[in-house]
């Protein structure tokens, strides 16, 4: 691996995941590359079928990629042996959308949060209990909660438990897969603030996946927009959402119902079509059947990635300089 300074914590290069189902191939992720610098957040947005959750599972090697490279802190994750992978797993954790679905209903908080400590042999007995209390306090809960079960908590509190559990092994990277999507908006803001505070305190890196563009923009240093298994545009969230350069990003940004008290009842032109199945991606640019600006080349040639501004790229034929 090329040495850059400072080396990113996480790197995915040309990541591909194809699923075979009943004779057809679902191209869930089809050549995705990104890097997550230390202490930073990379956001993935996209609609269903874009492949963003598959990317999350590939990044943690919960799924085996069809091809591509993954490295974590300079170690090749795909070449890593069982023992090495186990040690690395400790440093990469995930927080899921449904806290109740991901917490064992029969486990008390002490065991739910302490389980990773036992699994990785990090702490036992009194030391484990003390560490669990420390983790609970870090996420805004307390020792009083140790003996409770998940169902005794509200959704926001349960998600805090999920975050405490993810923090137990002192990870460097946390993948947040729609981690706030099921929460009420008043509670969502609390959890977003918690995640940001933890990042500042612990130097965490996040891969932050959500379908809510405004949530992703708020959380991320860099945003990647995915469509049918590809990243079509990336860059600073403010710039990207203010001035999307890929026609799909533009469609996505303009589709978000706008909360604007000064301009209520605004009717906007609705986007056209629906995303096709990733088992039958269109030829050429995958977005061309829905693209309001498609021209002849778009149905035949796959667009390459063009730099559009410092730190920003988009994959669209319209951005070719000599066009």
């Amino acid at each position: 691996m090329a040495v850059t300074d400072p080396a990113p914590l996480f790197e995915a290069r040309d990541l591909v995941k194809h699923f075979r189902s009943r004779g057809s191939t679902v191209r869930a992720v089809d050549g995705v590359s990104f890097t997550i610098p230390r202490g930073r957040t990379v956001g993935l947005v996209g609609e269903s079928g874009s492949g963003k959750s598959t990317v999350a599972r590939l990044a943690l090697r919960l799924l085996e990629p069809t091809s591509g490279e993954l490295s974590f802190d300079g170690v090749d994750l795909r070449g890593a042996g069982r023992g090495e992978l186990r040690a690395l797993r400790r440093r990469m954790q995930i927080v899921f959308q449904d806290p109740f679905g991901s917490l064992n209903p029969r486990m008390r908080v002490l065991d739910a949060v302490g389980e990773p400590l036992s699994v990785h042999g990090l702490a036992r007995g009194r030391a484990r209990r003390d560490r669990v209390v420390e983790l609970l306090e870090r996420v805004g809960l307390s020792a009083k909660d140790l003996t409770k079960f998940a169902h005794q908590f509200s959704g926001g509190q349960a998600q805090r438990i999920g975050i405490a559990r993810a923090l137990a092994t002192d990870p460097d990277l946390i993948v947040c897969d729609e981690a706030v999507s099921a929460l009420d908006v008043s509670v969502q803001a609390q959890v977003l603030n918690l995640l940001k505070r933890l990042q500042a305190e612990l130097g965490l890196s996040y891969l932050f996946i959500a379908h809510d563009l405004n949530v992703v923009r708020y959380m991320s240093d860099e945003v990647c927009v995915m469509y049918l298994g590809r990243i079509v545009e990336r860059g600073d969230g403010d710039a990207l959402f203010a001035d999307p350069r890929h026609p799909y990003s533009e469609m996505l940004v303009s589709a978000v119902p706008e909360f604007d008290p000064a301009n209520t009842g605004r009717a906007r032109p609705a986007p056209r079509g629906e995303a096709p199945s990733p088992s039958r991606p269109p030829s050429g640019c995958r977005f061309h059947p829905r693209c309001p600006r498609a021209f002849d080349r778009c149905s035949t040639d796959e667009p390459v990635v063009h730099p559009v501004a410092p730190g920003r790229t988009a994959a669209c034929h319209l951005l070719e300089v000599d066009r």
Partner: protein
Amino acid sequence: MPSPPLLEVDDLQVRFPTPAGPIDAVSGVSFSVSPGETVAVVGESGSGKSVSALAVLGLLGAGRVAGGSVRFRGEELVGAAPDRLRRLRGADIAMIFQNPMSSLDPLFTVGDQVAEALREHRRTPRRTAKARAVELLREVGLPDPERRVRSYPHELSGGQQQRVMIAIGLACEPALLICDEPTTALDVTVEAQILDLLRRVQRDHGTALLFITHDMGVVSELADRVLVMYAGRVVEHGSVAEVLGAPGNPYTRALIDSIPTPATPRDVPMPAIAGSVPHASDMPSGCRFHPRCPRVHDRCATEPPLHDIGPGRASRCWLHAAGTAGSTVAGVRGVG
């Protein structure tokens, strides 16, 4: 001269039995919907917004209306015969839900299901109903309706299924369409299409919409008036522009502030509401928002009434009562 309301809900109470005793999911909710109007009911989980809508149609399951009245075109629906309600549902009042897959019958083609609505309520002959089903599916923007009319629900995308639900809802040209989070499960580009469709339906047919949502953006784009609900009560209502632009109630203000927008600064914490939404079995005394309210004071131990704070506007907060220090709406606006 405003037309008389189509739907009038007055002091509605809805009670559900639980092993620990009855709980009130909705306590004293009143609102009205006029012909052709869009009224949004917005709130977080447990606010009672969906239960209020279901109560209109008599679809409460184990729950029951424990008080109040629901009048449709002046006719009392609370205590109406099940037969009468069944005739109203679908014909005069239609409803679409969040998850179309659980409302559609997987064993019948979508064409059959649209035609069924016509045959049931209008006694339309089979052949005419089939032809009308194709027309309705075309009207709701289902691509290739002549072919799609023979599709089964699972062969359609979530957005297409919701279009079919809207076609069924429109089959008998109802005067009122109740929409319970109809776009929450959909991708944002498809959501925009469905909202556009609902707007068009309203314009072309003059259908009134009662729209239940948790999304202030949807309220902002679609509705004329809004009711904000919290913990089983209406805490504020009024025109969308006024309620969203200058919220009178501290809860409305705090809720709006906690929504990330494209303008939210990234480098400072979001304004969040402390604590969580109370459960109906463990309702705070006095003002139900007081344990989380940034403007809480002594009087909040007693439940405030809805205070009129402008034409067609009201807010349930002691800050509007005469003699309360700092009682101006402008003061409330500074919170967060």
